[in-house]
């Protein structure tokens, strides 16, 4: 007997560390954290070790309706013991507001353990007191649909993610499929929804501080297309929820009640900021994100009529599908085909990622060197909150063989006044000789200086006349002066005769008078000494030709004869001409 007691003692000694090895848990649980003034509350103080000397809190602000009720459960499952001891109280609130239920304490193996204080919100009296065990109430309290928005204040075109999560508490379960009643339409957004495929993954998480299980139903990537307040329509589901009821079935298991609940993730409002206006580059086309920009050519040396490819690529993360790539400009001698667009974009929860490129096919028509101007691309970086411009390097295309002639023809076609006939098929070499001219000749034409030159030349004319006049007067060449006088005299002598040509008698009288006057002036003869012999002798002396003398004498004779015999008009004309010639002859001889 004594040995047996000893064994039992040993057994106990061995068992003590086992029981001490499990951690002592002492918690306070309330049936609801929020209740109306006319509702009741149950509070359980639960421990997993057998404790003594339980001291309940004061329950200030509550009236204790019942309790403490003590219950103990002890079970062995697969050799594992689980134990719980519970003290329960039923309480009725006395006032509105937040009431704190203080700490309860228990003594386990000589140590005192305390529960955490619990806060309870007491609201105004409710119409129908909520029954903590009502299935509907439980279902609505334990299942929540939440739309989580990654950023409620994004920039225009900045990606935001909306994640729809269904939270289910441990008290209820969902065993069959739900039905979507209303799926959101994302007006004013560019959207892409990423639906969960296959089996939903169950995660552990917290919802308002309590442990929940949740599943991710759907993820939507949104790019706001408008600034200002935009709302996201709610997602509404019809969910069958299994709620544990208090009844038990024949085998002692809890019976479950199925409740269909319509739950909705509330309407969310997103405030979209416009992109800043200051420092906005001119070539900005709405790209928001983080990008790399590049351009490339497939070959840089080719012949005319061959083709090359020019590609423009934007690669990175952002609204790749929502902006235009910069349009390159090509030399006019290139034939350019419509670009082929290549999109390699994958959408993830963080947004679109990948590359967009446009490939241009170019066919040069003429030989030459063609620089393709650099391209620039601007985007807005929402993290740095500023615009960034990236520029590609320029490419140079050498077209080695090909017509140059045609280019000139094209040139003359488009530029009529500029008809160039290029006789060289090559780009001509530089010129090796040069004449030099003053770069900025002073304006001369139209200035006073210029008109002075013109006037200066013009003034030479009267100056010359004045000079020649003075010279003639003082350096006297009298002969030439007399000559002019004589010429004038001949005209004078003959003018009378000329006037009388219609009347032969008067004509000859005048002609004779004229000849006499001429001889008087010429030979310094008096009228009395004007015999034919005398004239002939003097003339010969002055070396007048015999012929001229004969003609003069003949003329004088004809004049004398005409006084008595009538003559014709023809004779008059002939004699007049004869007189002119003879006078000229004699004059010339005299010089």
């Amino acid at each position, binding site marked *: 007997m004594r040995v047996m007691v000893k064994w039992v003692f040993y057994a106990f000694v061995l068992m003590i560390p086992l029981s001490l090895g499990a951690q002592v848990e002492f918690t306070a649980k309330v049936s609801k954290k929020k209740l109306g003034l006319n509702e009741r509350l149950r509070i359980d103080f639960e421990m997993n070790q057998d404790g003594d000397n339980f001291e309940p809190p004061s329950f200030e602000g509550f009236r204790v309706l019942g309790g403490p009720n003590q219950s103990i459960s002890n079970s062995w499952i697969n050799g594992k013991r689980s134990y719980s001891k519970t003290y329960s109280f039923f309480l009725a609130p006395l006032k509105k507001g937040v009431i704190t239920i203080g700490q309860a304490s228990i003594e386990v193996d000589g140590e005192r353990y305390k529960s955490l204080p619990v806060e309870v919100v007491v609201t105004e009296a409710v119409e129908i007191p909520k029954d903590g065990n009502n299935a509907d109430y439980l279902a609505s309290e334990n299942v929540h649909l939440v739309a989580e928005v990654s950023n409620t204040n994004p920039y225009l075109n900045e990606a935001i993610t909306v994640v729809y999560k269904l939270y289910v508490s441990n008290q209820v379960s969902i065993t069959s499929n739900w039905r979507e009643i209303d799926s959101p339409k994302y007006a004013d957004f560019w959207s892409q929804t990423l639906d969960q495929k296959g089996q939903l993954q169950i995660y552990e998480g917290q919802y308002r501080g309590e442990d929940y299980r949740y599943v991710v139903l759907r993820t939507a990537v949104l790019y706001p297309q408008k600034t200002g307040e935009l709302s996201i329509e709610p997602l509404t589901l019809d969910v069958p929820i299994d709620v544990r009821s208090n009844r038990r079935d024949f085998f002692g298991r809890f019976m479950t009640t199925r409740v269909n609940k319509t739950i909705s993730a509330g309407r969310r409002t997103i405030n979209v900021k416009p992109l800043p206006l200051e420092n906005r580059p001119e070539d900005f086309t709405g790209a928001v994100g983080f990008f790399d920009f590049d351009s490339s050519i497939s070959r840089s040396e080719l012949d005319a009529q061959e083709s090359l490819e020019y590609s423009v690529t934007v690669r990175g993360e952002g609204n790749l599908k929502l902006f235009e790539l910069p349009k390159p400009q090509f030399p006019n001698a290139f034939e350019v085909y419509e670009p082929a667009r290549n999109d390699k974009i994958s959408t993830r929860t963080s947004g679109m990622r990948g590359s967009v490129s446009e490939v241009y096919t170019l066919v040069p028509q003429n030989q*030459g060197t063609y620089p393709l101007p650099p391209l620039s691309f601007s985007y807005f970086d929402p993290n740095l909150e500023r615009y960034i411009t990236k520029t590609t390097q320029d490419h140079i295309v050498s077209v080695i063989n090909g017509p140059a002639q045609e280019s000139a023809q094209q040139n003359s076609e*488009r530029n009529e006044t500029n008809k160039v006939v290029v006789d060289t098929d090559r780009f001509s070499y530089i010129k090796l000789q040069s004449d030099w001219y003053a770069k900025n000749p002073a304006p001369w034409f139209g200035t006073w200086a210029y008109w002075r030159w013109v006037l200066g*030349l013009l003034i030479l004319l009267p100056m010359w006349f004045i000079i020649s006049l003075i010279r003639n007067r003082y350096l006297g060449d009298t002969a030439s002066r007399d000559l002019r006088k004589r010429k004038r005299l001949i005209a004078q002598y003959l003018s009378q005769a000329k006037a009388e040509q219609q009347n032969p008698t008067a004509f000859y009288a005048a002609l004779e008078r004229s000849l006499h006057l001429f001889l008087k002036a010429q030979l310094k003869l008096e009228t009395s000494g004007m015999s034919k012999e005398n004239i002939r002798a003097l003339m010969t002396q002055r070396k007048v030709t015999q012929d001229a003398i004969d003609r003069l004498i003949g003329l004088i004779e004809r004049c004398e004869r005409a006084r008595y015999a009538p003559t014709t008009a023809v004779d008059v004309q002939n004699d007049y001409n004869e007189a002119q010639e003879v006078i000229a002859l004699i004059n010339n001889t005299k010089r």
Partner: protein
Amino acid sequence: MMARGLYLLVFIMFFAPQNGHGQGQSDNWFDQGNQLYKNEQYNEAILRWEAVLESGVHSAAIYYNMANAYYHLNDLASSIYYYEKALALSPGDVEIKANRAYVQNALIDVIREQPKTLFQKWDEASGQLLSVNTWAWLGLFFMGLFVFVAISFNLVETPSAKRLSFVTGILSVILFTGSIAFGIKTQSYSQNYRWAIVFSQEMSVRSGPRLSDEALFELHAGTKVRLLQSQDEWQEVELADGRRGWVSSNEIKTL
């Protein structure tokens, strides 16, 4: 009479376009530039040629050479700029026009010239026929010829010589008047037709001289524009096809 003619000739010679002093230095730099161009040292060649230009002289040849060098450096706007400068001095040069056509092929803008009436063509051609100073010299020459002929008219005696000098005199008066008229025409042409080359890679032509004004169209480097009026930093330009608009003066370079 003979002496007077000689005097006139000396007189014209004396005032003929001055060949810049230090011609030897210019030729030296020019040749150095040519040598560098041959060795494909285009930047250095341009520096030499620019030194020549800075000394106050220029020529079609040096502008043409610079344009070729800029083409090899792929600077199309500068290339066109110097070809145009060369053509202004030597409008009929085939080589310059041919090489310019190469560069024009590589430009982005194609400006189709507006068709002109015959009168407009004459009007423009008359303004580009000869330089103002050449017309000035021609005017002076015909004036001198008139004075010379007027004097000789009084000296010659035979009727045929007199007739000849009379006709020459009348003709030289007509030619003098014509030269003066063309001179005035050329002067007003060079004042009204001022040109510039677009140097900015790409620029907007706007409806008015403000950044807020509507952008009408885009122009790219190397395009030739005619200058109209200007206000502050803005310049109104006209294209060969008749389109007009305002651009920032910093983006173009006046010829």
